[in-house]
């Protein structure tokens, strides 16, 4: 096996037994990125110097043998909306093209304290607005399984990097499926965490009330290792959860079966428009889970059909406000050569934002305007409460729900970009989770025409342990997650 095919646990074994140094490992990844990423295009920034410096520090720590964690010396990448001090953080937007944050986000800080090694920052749809990375202000990332197809989005660069062996794990960010959707398209394991489980401090917001940082890796077990490192209460994030973080990996080691677990299958997620192969693979995964001892039952989430409009309305509204700070005054792009203050605002935002971002800012500004607020934003919040209740009710009778992640496998580049509504609908199975703030995971469960299929496991708030257990035991029985694209 090659280095880039190893999972975190295996790599940690090589590092701690000093069969390989973090520096050697890091150089191997940097070399692979240099060789393959010009085709995959998963990285916006490769932070080679920072990586090598961090790797040397990790090696010293490994030598001293003190304070080692499973992530010490392990390279990783991060979605480009997660602030990294001194390393460009662009949100794949021209408006932040040369923006270097003065501070690290809390999640990055935690990985720094574990002596993990930052390889670089991954491409995304601009500010997270999209499901294909085609809305990146720079370039479109390709699906490592087939370069003619999208990697999904908005954390498409992150998913592609892990799938292509350009990072052993990555930090994605999920606002409305942005971790699960590309994880499914690229055949990696991705966890959307409970809202507030991982600090948002330093995460450049798209929708403050939906955004969650979540790990993507080659297995549920690896995801558990990363989650342990980055989760927890943060006094700098008033919306972060105070509950202590469980030892997920320990619990996975002990897990043997899913006996006693009740799994709900929401009928609203198996509807017309669902690709036949996707349907078959997801149903096969459900059978597999059943064979592990879980009890499977049909449930209903009756307000599912409203999830897309509600999600997008709230997104437009919050995003229009969150993106107001990009005004050319303090950081990022600033078109201030001529004209007055209004010209600076207009020219900077005209030149800096892409078409989809502008569309959403305008829709959000409209939805929040006097006279429309009640009809749009307020009504959306009311329906959001109903969707949340759907889940609460379902979780009274079952411990987790299983659904597809996306109606199809990865679509072709350019296929949906001219039709925003069609693009929005590819999020139909993922956005309700964000409206409810619950965790959900995408696990590889098959292929169709050489493109990966993902199955989604959802659970109540803070049920990450349950989701990881289901994913882990499933992966002990299957090998979909161990497949590598031919690069």
């Amino acid at each position, binding site marked *: 096996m090659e280095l880039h095919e190893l999972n975190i646990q295996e790599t940690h074994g090589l590092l701690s037994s000093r069969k390989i140094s973090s520096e050697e490992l890091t150089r191997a990844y940097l070399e692979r990125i240099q060789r393959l990423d010009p085709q995959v295009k998963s990285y916006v920034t490769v932070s080679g110097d920072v990586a090598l410096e961090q790797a040397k520090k990790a090696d010293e720590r490994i030598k001293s043998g003190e304070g080692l964690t499973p992530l010490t010396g392990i390279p990783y990448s991060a979605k480009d909306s997660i602030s990294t001090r001194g390393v460009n953080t662009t949100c794949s937007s021209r408006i932040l093209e040369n*923006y270097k944050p003065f501070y690290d986000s809390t999640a990055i800080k935690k990985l720094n304290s574990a002596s993990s090694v930052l390889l670089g920052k991954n491409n995304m749809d601009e500010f997270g607005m999209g499901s294909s990375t085609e809305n990146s202000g720079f370039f479109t990332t390709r699906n490592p399984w087939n370069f003619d197809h999208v990697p999904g989005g908005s954390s498409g660069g992150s998913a592609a990097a892990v799938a292509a062996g350009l990072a052993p794990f990555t930090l994605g960010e999920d606002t409305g499926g942005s971790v699960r959707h590309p994880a499914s398209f690229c055949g990696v394991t991705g966890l959307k965490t409970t809202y507030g489980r991982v600090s948002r401090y330093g995460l450049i917001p798209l929708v*403050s009330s939906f955004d969650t940082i979540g790990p993507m890796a080659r297995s549920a077990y690896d995801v558990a290792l990363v989650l342990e490192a980055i989760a927890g209460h943060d006094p700098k994030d008033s*919306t972060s959860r105070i509950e202590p973080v469980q030892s997920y990996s320990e619990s996975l080691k002990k897990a043997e079966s899913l006996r006693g677990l009740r799994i709900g299958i929401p009928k609203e997620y198996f509807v017309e428009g669902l690709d036949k192969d996707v349907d078959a693979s997801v149903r096969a995964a459900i059978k597999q889970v059943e064979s592990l001892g879980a009890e499977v039952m049909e449930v209903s989430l009756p307000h599912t059909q409203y999830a897309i409009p509600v999600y997008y309305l709230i997104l437009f509204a919050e995003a229009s406000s969150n993106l107001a*700070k990009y005004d050319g*005054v303090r950081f990022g792009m600033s078109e201030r050569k001529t004209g007055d203050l209004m010209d600076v605002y207009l020219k900077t935002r005209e030149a800096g934002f892409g078409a989809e971002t502008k569309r959403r800012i305008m829709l959000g500004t409209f939805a929040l*305007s006097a006279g429309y607020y009640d009809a749009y934003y307020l009504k959306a919040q009311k329906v959001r409460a109903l969707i949340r209740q759907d889940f609460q009710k379902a979780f009274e009778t079952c411990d987790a729900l299983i659904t597809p992640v996306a109606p199809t496998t990865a679509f072709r580049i350019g296929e949906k970009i001219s039709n925003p509504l069609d693009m929005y609908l590819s999020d139909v199975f993922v956005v309700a989770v964000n409206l409810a703030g619950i965790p959900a995971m995408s696990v590889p469960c098959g292929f169709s025409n050489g493109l990966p299929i993902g199955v989604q496991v959802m659970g109540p708030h803070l049920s990450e342990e349950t989701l990881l257990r289901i994913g882990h035991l499933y992966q002990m029985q299957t090998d979909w997650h161990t497949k590598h694209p031919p690069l």
Partner: protein
Amino acid sequence: MQQTYEPIIGLEVHAELLTRSKMFCGCEVVDSITAKPNRFICPVCTGQPGALPVLNKKAVELAVKVGLALECEIHTESIFARKNYFYPDLPKGYQISQYDQPLATDGKLLIETESGVKEIRIRRVHLEEDTGKLSHADAHSFIDYNRSGVPLLEIVTEPDLRSPDEAKAYATALHAILRYLDVNSGDMEKGVIRFEANVSVRKMGSDQLNARTEIKNLNSFRSLAQGIEYEIARQTEIYSRGGVVEQETVGFNESTGKTYSQRGKEEAHDYRYFPEPDLPPLVLDADWIESIRATLPELPDAKTKRFISDFGLTPLDARFLTSDLSLADYFERVASHSKSPAKSVHSWIAGEFMRYINESGIKIDDVTLLPESFAKLIDMVTDKTIGGNSAKVVLSEMLQHGGYPAQIVQEKGLAQVSDESFIQEAVTKVLNDNPSEVEKYLAGKETLLQWFVGQVARSTKGKADPSVTRELLVKELEERRR
């Protein structure tokens, strides 16, 4: 013409809260005039991407204090909201404020008016963050974010005020309460309290609501009264010639005393308020609110009543003293050490002492004169050890250079003399030296008597007891008449 219209006035007061750190980050709150620009800033208060607000509990505590002092209902759940607009002093592109669920509502404040005490209803009290400060020079604009994120309290009245004087009385009373609660420094010249007035006028007796103008940048009591006065006159003039007042936002120019149009109704901001998703609802414990109520100090109204009953002061005198906590405290300390009637203490404090404060610009809190010494001096006047004019000299000496009254009186030889032979000598000399004034007096211009008293006082350096002087002067002048 003027009498047939009445003004309807509502006030919005923005007061900075005296917390050590800012509203949503750990940056220190500094004097925004003297501190070096942009030294007290961080990712949160400069709106760096990804930074998040964390609420300063102290700001909430101070806001609750004010709400309680204004007899508001304090809401155990309130919501922060984003007020969206673009301006370079607003780094996030929105201000975190409170909108439809503020911290406190439905309070009141009593003010003294010509026709007696009047209740002004308080609509709401809410928390928000201050903006940065802009300055302009050489075709450039500069932004200082030291002030960005400083906690502000917004206190909004119902439109209950009916004159510039009432508005000023309300502002002064509120200023006093903020000082009593120690939640605001009260330094108006540093902009820690700022006013906005909503003014409309209507025909007397009408209950119609006419278009109102919102006057911004009123930064002193004087500007407040002037701005309102100007707006009332302007609107009255428009109506009386059959015109229509436009609903608009106006600025106030301190040097011309006039308002000028800033934004019409068409350009009015739509702030697109919505609940701030980065902050959970502000939930307060009812017991905690009660524990804050228990710490409230004696407020101006209560102190006024006590000064009237304990010291026998008139309501007007008492209210003058209690309008400023430092002044009230100083008065009380002097009065407690003095054997003289409180009325004398009041007249010394309201008179000479305040004249010194106003002329020197020294703050009452910085006065070094011990209340004991001041009391002793007043007592020396009361028991006629020294005359009033001499006492003024001694007070001035003590305020400027310190010292004890008895010592200064002795050093300067200011002790009052009621020995008749000493005074008689001076009286004779004054009358001999001013024969023409004597003649005029004897011809019937008796008002000159006071002038002669003054001359004697001058020649004896104020030592002569004025009542004895007067007696001897009359006697000798009558003798000369014969």
